[in-house]
C-alpha cells in the first residue's frame, strides 16, 4: 500500500494526473471541433450534409431548453440501465450454472451458442412481431445482447481459479455458498469487469437498435426524427449525446473496476 504522505511529497511540483488527463481530453476536443469548423467553412460543405459545430451546439441548446433532449435521454438511459443490470444478473447466473453443472451445460450450451451466433438485427423484427412496439420488445433485445458476454466472462473467471485453490476450499471444509462468496466471486471479478465493458456497449447498441425500429422516444428516435425531417443538426446532436452516454457508461464501469480491483494495480 502506498503511503499518501510520501506520494504527495514526491509529486508536489507536478500537475495532478487527473487534471492532466482532463486537460488533454479538452485539447483533443478543441482540436477536433476546430478541424470540423474549419473544414465546413473552408470547403463550403452544404449544411444538409454536415452542419457546422455551432449549428449543432445551437440545436443541442434548443432541445435542452425545451425539454426534448432530457425526456429522450432519460428514456434511453433508463432502458440501458435496466437491460444492462438484467443482462449482468442473468448472464452471471447462467455462466455459474453452466460451469458447475455438467447437466445444465449439456442441455443449454448448443442453444445458447446458436442464439448468439444469429445476428440480433435479424431477431429484432420478430421481437416486434411477438411483443409489440412497446418497451417489452426493446428490453428483450437489450437483454439478449448483454447476457452473453457476461455468461462467457463468468465461465472464464471460474475456470481461472487454480486447482490448488479448489483443493484448499475442500480442505477448509467450505460450503458451496461460502466457497462462492470467498473464492469464486472475487476470483471471477476481473473477467466479469471485462465482460461488463463489452456488455455495456452491447446494451447501448441494443437500446438504439430497438429505438430505431420501434420506439416513439429515446435518443435513437431523435436520430430517426432528425434524419426524416432533414434536421441534420438535430441528428448530429443526438449522435454526440449518444457517444457521451456510451463514454459515461464505459467510464463508470472502469471507475468501479479500479476501485474494486485495487489489488491488481499494486503490482
Amino acid at each position, binding site marked *: 500500500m502506498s503511503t499518501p504522505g510520501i506520494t504527495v511529497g514526491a509529486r508536489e511540483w507536478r500537475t495532478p494526473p487527473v487534471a492532466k488527463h482532463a486537460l488533454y481530453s479538452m485539447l483533443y476536443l478543441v482540436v477536433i471541433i476546430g478541424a470540423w469548423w474549419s473544414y465546413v467553412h473552408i470547403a463550403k460543405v452544404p449544411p444538409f450534409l454536415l452542419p457546422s459545430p455551432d449549428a449543432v451546439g445551437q440545436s443541442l441548446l434548443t432541445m435542452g431548453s425545451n425539454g426534448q433532449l432530457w425526456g429522450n435521454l432519460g428514456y434511453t438511459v433508463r432502458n440501458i440501465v435496466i437491460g444492462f443490470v438484467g443482462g449482468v444478473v442473468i448472464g452471471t447466473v447462467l455462466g455459474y450454472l453452466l460451469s458447475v453443472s455438467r447437466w445444465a451445460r449439456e442441455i443449454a450450451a448448443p442453444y445458447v451458442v446458436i442464439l448468439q451466433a444469429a445476428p440480433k438485427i435479424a431477431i429484432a423484427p420478430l421481437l416486434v412481431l411477438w411483443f409489440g412496439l412497446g418497451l417489452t420488445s426493446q428490453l428483450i433485445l437489450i437483454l439478449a445482447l448483454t447476457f452473453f458476454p457476461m455468461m462467457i466472462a463468468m465461465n472464464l473467471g471460474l475456470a481461472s481459479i487454480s486447482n490448488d485453490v479448489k*483443493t*484448499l476450499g475442500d480442505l477448509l471444509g467450505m460450503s458451496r455458498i461460502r466457497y462462492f462468496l*470467498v473464492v469464486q466471486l*472475487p476470483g471471477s471479478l476481473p473477467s466479469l469487469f471485462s465482460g461488463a465493458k463489452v456488455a455495456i456497449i452491447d446494451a447501448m447498441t441494443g437500446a438504439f437498435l430497438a429505438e430505431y425500429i420501434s420506439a416513439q422516444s429515446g435518443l435513437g428516435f431523435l436520430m430517426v426524427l432528425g434524419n426524416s425531417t432533414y434536421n441534420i443538426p438535430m441528428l448530429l446532436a443526438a449522435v454526440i449525446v449518444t457517444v457521451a452516454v456510451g463514454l459515461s457508461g464505459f467510464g463508470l464501469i472502469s471507475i468501479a473496476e479500479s476501485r474494486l480491483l485495487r489489488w491488481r494495480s499494486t503490482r
Partner: protein
Amino acid sequence: MTDFLAVTSVTKVYQTAQGQSVTALSDVSLEIADQEIVALIGPSGCGKSTLLRMIANLDRSFTGEVRWANPPKPGKDIGFVFQEPALLPWRSVARNVALGLEGKGSSKSVIDSRVSDLLEMVGLQDFATSYPSELSGGMRQRVAIVRALAYDPQILLMDEPFGALDAITRDRLQDDLLRIWEQTHKTIVLVTHSVEEATYLADRVVVLSPRPGRVKSVHTVPLSRKRNAETRELPEFARFAGMLRSELE
C-alpha cells in the same frame, strides 16, 4: 503401539481416459509418529502426491486403510502446502492467513492476534496489509505455510513445497520450516524430489519405487534433530544423501 497415523495396505487403481487401468500405489503401508517429520521421495509418477492426498482425505477411492489415533475433524486438522503458494491475490497477506480461521466461530480479535503471531513467526509482520503480488516467491510460500498452520492442524502435509523456488530461497525456507517445527512440534509429511531436502528436514525418509508405487525402503536419518547450515557439510549428510540417490536409481 498406537501410532499417530497408520497407512495400511493402501492400493490405488484408476482408469485412464483410454479405459486402461493403472495402478498408482500398490500395497503401501506406513506408520507416522506424533511430532515426526517424514519425507516421501521417489521418481516422478510414483504416487507420492496421491498418497499425500489420501492422508488429507482428498482422495477417497482406494482400498486399504488410513487410520488416525484421533480422526481429523473436517476443515480443521489438515494443513496443506502446495508447490505453488495458491494464495488469493485479492486478499491481503493477513487475510490470506486468516482464510482457514474465518467462518468457524472465532471472533475477529482472536483471529487478528493469531494471524499477527503467525506472521511474526515467519518474519512477515510488516507485510500484513500487502497483497501477494507485492511479495517475492519465497515470501508467498511462507504465507502459504502459516496459512496452513493457522488453525493449528494435527498434521502439516507438504507437496513439494519448495520445488518452485531458487536454491538460495529454498535453503532459507527449509531453515524456516525447521524453526517452525521447533516452535510447534507439528507432525509433517513432506513430498520432495530432492534427496538433500529430505535428508536435511526429515527424521525418516520413505523411498517409493517407480509405478506402481510401493514402499521400497524406509530410512532413519542419522543426524541429530538440531540442524543448521553446518549440517549440510557433515560427512554423514553427504553419505546419507548419496545412499538415497542410489536408492532412486
